[in-house]
Every structure is written in C-alpha cells, then in structure tokens.
C-alpha cells in the first residue's frame, strides 16, 4: 500500500483525475520565490506535460522580485522609467509571451498561473477570462472589498482603479500565464509604467483598500476556494511538487 502511494505522481491515472465527487482535479503548485525566467521555464514544462495528459489541470503560484513584464501587445512607451531609474530601483524588464500590455510584478502580489485544458472546459477563452475575473471579484468580496469588471478592459477594478490584472496565453487550448492580484504590493512601483497601457487609470491593492496588510497565504487559500467552485474543480495541493517540476 505504502509503495503504491509512492509510485510516480507524474502519471495521472484516470481514477486520480476523477475523484469521488467526480469533479476533475486541479493540482496546486507553489513555486515560491523565483526569478521570472525560471518560473516561465517551469511553467512551460508543466504546460507541455498538461498537453500530454501527464498532469491534470494545475494552478501555479509564484512570488517575484520587483519586475516589469511586457506582453505581446505591449508598447514600449508604456514603460515610463529609463534604464537608470529601473536599475536604481532594482527592477528588471522581461518580455512575456502572454496577451496584454505591460505590467508590474513584485512582492506582496498574488500571481497565479492556471494551466487548464480548455478542451475539457467549454473551449472558450472569453468565458475563461470572465470566469477568472469572477473568481477575483468573489474573493475580494470575502475580504470586504467590492470590485467590478469593465467591458473592454479585462481585469478587476475597485473604484476605477485596477486591483487585478489578467494576461493569458493558450496553446492547443492549454492555458498559461494568468493573473496578478495586488495584495500588499508596493504601489509606487506602478509609477514606472502605464499599467496594461491604460492611460489615466490608477492602481490599488487590497492592503490600500483595507488599510492593513494581509497574509498572502490567506488570500491564496480564498482564491483557490473560489477558483475550484467557479471552474468546478476539486483542488489538491501537489504533494510532490519537487518531483513534478524539478526532477
């Protein structure tokens, strides 16, 4: 018995994919603090494995040092700071193979990369975006923060200021990249850019809205709850994350 429990978690058997409550499983992987390239490397491997059915749907969580990422649709002029200023503040700029414009990532942010096979989920990327937004809105409400979504401006907003950014990539209906929610983010870093290329709109964070910092892990758990509900997934934490991603 013990031996079978130790058999490679890599190969996901059909029974694992459909647990007792018959909801497809979603595996949570916390990558912890990573630099950007490294996290993308891991994400790529997971995406490839997802495509082959080696892994079920996954939710990746990652913490970043201060960085600016530029989506495919990103315009360089939305980067306001010069190289000197960036260096002074210890911020690096990375191109990112996702949709969306420019954004900032850094400590205190909840960054989530869902790797889902949308072939088994409506085959609809707009529906996917809207569902991600709904997860964030419901989660924020749990913390007493009313937020909204705006047509034509993907993301989640509080009083006209952006709190959650979304940028997604799909390949054969398998999603990657995802969302970044400002929890305790130092919002001054956003002065370096025009977030998501939206001129004249500010940013905010949960901490700024509530006037206190929050435990990131608490926000993460809350997000997972809503994600599981909205996407109809049963969630389990990867017990073998190292074996999965760094073997």
């Amino acid at each position, binding site marked *: 018995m013990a031996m079978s429990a130790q058999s*490679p978690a890599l190969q996901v058997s059909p029974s694992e994919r459909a647990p007792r409550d018959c909801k497809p499983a979603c595996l949570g992987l916390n990558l*912890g603090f990573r630099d950007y390239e490294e996290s993308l490397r891991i994400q790529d491997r997971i995406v490839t494995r997802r495509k*082959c059915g080696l892994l079920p749907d996954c939710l990746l969580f990652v913490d970043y040092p201060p960085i600016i990422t530029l989506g495919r649709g990103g315009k360089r002029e939305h980067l306001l700071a010069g190289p000197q200023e960036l260096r002074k503040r210890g911020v690096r700029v990375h191109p990112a193979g996702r949709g969306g414009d420019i954004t900032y990532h850094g400590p205190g942010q909840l960054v989530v990369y869902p790797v889902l096979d949308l072939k088994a989920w*409506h085959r609809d990327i707009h529906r*996917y975006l809207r569902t991600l937004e709904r997860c964030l809105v419901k989660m924020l409400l749990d913390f007493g923060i009313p937020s909204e979504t705006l047509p034509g401006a*993907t993301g989640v907003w509080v009083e006209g200021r952006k709190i959650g950014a979304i*940028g997604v990539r*799909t390949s054969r209906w398998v999603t990657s990249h995802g969302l970044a929610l400002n929890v305790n983010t130092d919002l001054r870093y956003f002065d370096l850019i025009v977030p998501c290329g939206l001129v004249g709109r500010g940013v905010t964070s949960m901490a700024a809205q509530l006037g206190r910092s929050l435990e990131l892990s608490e926000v993460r758990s809350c997000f997972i709850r809503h994600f599981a509900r909205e996407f109809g997934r049963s969630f389990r934490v990867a017990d073998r994350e*190292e074996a999965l991603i760094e073997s």
Partner: protein
Amino acid sequence: MPSNVIMPQMGESIFEGTITRWLKRVGDRVERDEPLFEISTDKVDSEIPASASGILREILFQEGETVEINTVVAIIDDEGGAVQDTAGDGNAVVRQEPEQTPGRNQKPEIADSRRGLRASPLVRRMAREEGIDLREIEGTGLGGRITKRDILNYLSERERIAEVTRPLVQQAQEGLGAAASDQDEIVPMTAMRRSIAEHMIGSRRTSAHVTSIFEVDMTAVMKLKEENAGKFARREGFKLSLTPFFVKGVVDTLKDFPILNASMAGNDIVYKKDINLGVAVALDWGLIVPVIRRAQQKTLAGIAREVADLSHRARQKQLSPDEVQGGTFTLTNPGVFGSLIGTPIINQPQVAILCVGAVTKRAVVINDAIAIRSMAYLSLTFDHRLIDGAVADRFLSSLKDRLEGWSGAID
C-alpha cells in the same frame, strides 16, 4: 492535396482574431500539430497548430491583420513533402508513412539513424524540455516512430528509478510518509507554520547555503554589560541583553561589507542602501523576524530599545506587517536556548544570516597560559552564489575584532 488553414474560433462570443506572428515562412515544411501561427484576442495570446503536414504554400494575411473566424489564412500543400524531407546528403530516407505493414525488423536501423528519427514536434519538444536524447528511446509507432506513449513510458521509467534513489527524508517531507495510524493525532498547520515551511524549503532551493564558524571572546562585552546593567535598567526600564551588542557589531561590520547586505535580482546584484537588520524572535507558536530599520543610523542604546520593544510586541502579536518586512540581513540567537553552533537557513531574498551561539565560560589558551574567558561561536550562513568564502571569513574576522575590542559608553 492542399489544405486550408483557417482562423479558429476561440470562444462563443469571439468572431475575429488578430494574427500576431507567423512561426513559419512560405516554403517551410510544417508538421501536423506543430505551432504555425499566433493570434491575439483581447488579453489572450494563442498558438495555433498546423492542421496538416506539408509545405506552407501561401500566407494570406500578414502579422497585425485582424481576420474573421473561419477565414482561410494560409494554405498547406502536402505534395512534395517527401522531396523536401530528403534534401541534404542525397541518401533518401525510407519514408514510413505510406507503408501499411511496418517491418518490425527495420526499426533498429531507423532508430539508429539520426536523420531517420521520427517523432512529432510535441514529442521532440518534450524530449528537449526533459533533456532526453530521443535516440535512447525505441519507437513503437509506425515504422519506429517515437510516439507520445513511448516518451511517457520512458519518463515514468526514469521517474521510477529516481524514486528508488530519493532519500527517505525527502519522501517524508513530501507527505508520503505521513500514513498515520489510528492513534496518531493529525493537526493542520497554522498559517504561520505553513508560511515558515514554505519559506524554509524555498530558501534551500534558491540559495547555495554555506556556513562558516568563528569563535569569539566575549569577555570585554560581558564586562561592559555587567558594569552598566544597573544604570541601564534604571534609565531605560528594561534589562540590557547581549543582542544589541551583536546587532550593533553586525551593522557596523556590514558597512564595510555591502555585498552581505545585498540581494540577487536575476543576473543583477542589488546593494541595499539601508541596513535593515532582522532579529529572529522565538515565539511559543513559531518564529518571527522583526526588522530594525536603518540600523546604520542607530546607537547601541537605540538598538537596545528597539530590540526590546519589537520582541515584546512580537510576543503580544502586536507587530504590524511592515515591521517584519524589508530586512536586508538577519541575526538569530539560539544561544539563549543553549545552542553552541547553528547553521541557519537564509531569510530570502537576503544573502546571509548570522547565528550567535551561547556565551559560556571556557578555558582558553592566551599567550601560552590557560585563562577563563566568556566565549561564543558565531556562524555565518551565506549564499555562495554571491559571496565567496574568503569574503565571508573576512566579515566574520572583522566582526570578531569589533566584539573582542569593544569599549565605550552605552548610549
């Protein structure tokens, strides 16, 4: 027969897509399922695979153009595919696709010939990402083609081998050894415990931990502390402890070794302007590291006050989150529990942590005579990616000199 590549519908309410990038050029050979172009809709970028194998004959819409769904955007022609494939040294490769009955005995030859190695782009990509040499895999597909199944089998085999050699400790950590019996009590971890656990293993994975240990004669500091104990307690209202001396000593030494007060950001080194010294405080329910900000501007007494205040409030659960963030170096003092030498884990994203062992009276040899001195072991764990051993040891040596030669008033 030519086959049309169309703009796919990416969702019910999506009626068009913008072509952002062609991954192949006209004339290129494409394999079915190989990424052919990229489109963008709203905030989603999608990679679209080729619907057929062959030569990309025509691209009808250029990058940047927005096209309605189901519009033909390119044409793939499968004729002449074989001709392209055999270009090069003139040795025509045996084409396996038309073959109806794969000759089993042909397989090894094909697997051995680099040129004849047959695998789909997905399989090749997996092999690349997993660092697998495809020649190691025997293909079981048509004509020795390496299939997805083959690579999965190979991977799980490799995984099984790795599994056998994985240390038991690690398995236990990963929760596999946690098959609890009926008598065992299972208690969920608190948020703090989980966060500590994540941080510890995350740090181990991030930094190249190395620890160096020095022995320091604390007699001068102990003497000064005892002489001033009464006066200090009367003036400040709390007892003077040893920690402020270590904090002050570390802060002053860090000024000469900015690399230990730094962090890594990608390929850059970030030298921190301020020395924000974290001091680990053990709690009944865990551990917290409040931070003394801009410690380089503070006096010994100022540091003593702050250490007393922060550790008191830590135990009362009254620290605000910004008081435990932004540290640039950490000091931990398990000596108060009697530990002689510790090898702590770095508090990310910092690059070093100093551990202070118990100060005890020991017989030591000074000028060939045995003397009784108050001694302590200081151990420094540093990130060897950024800090060389010699630098770490110079830091420790400088700190040792500072502590051993301590003099002056406490104010």
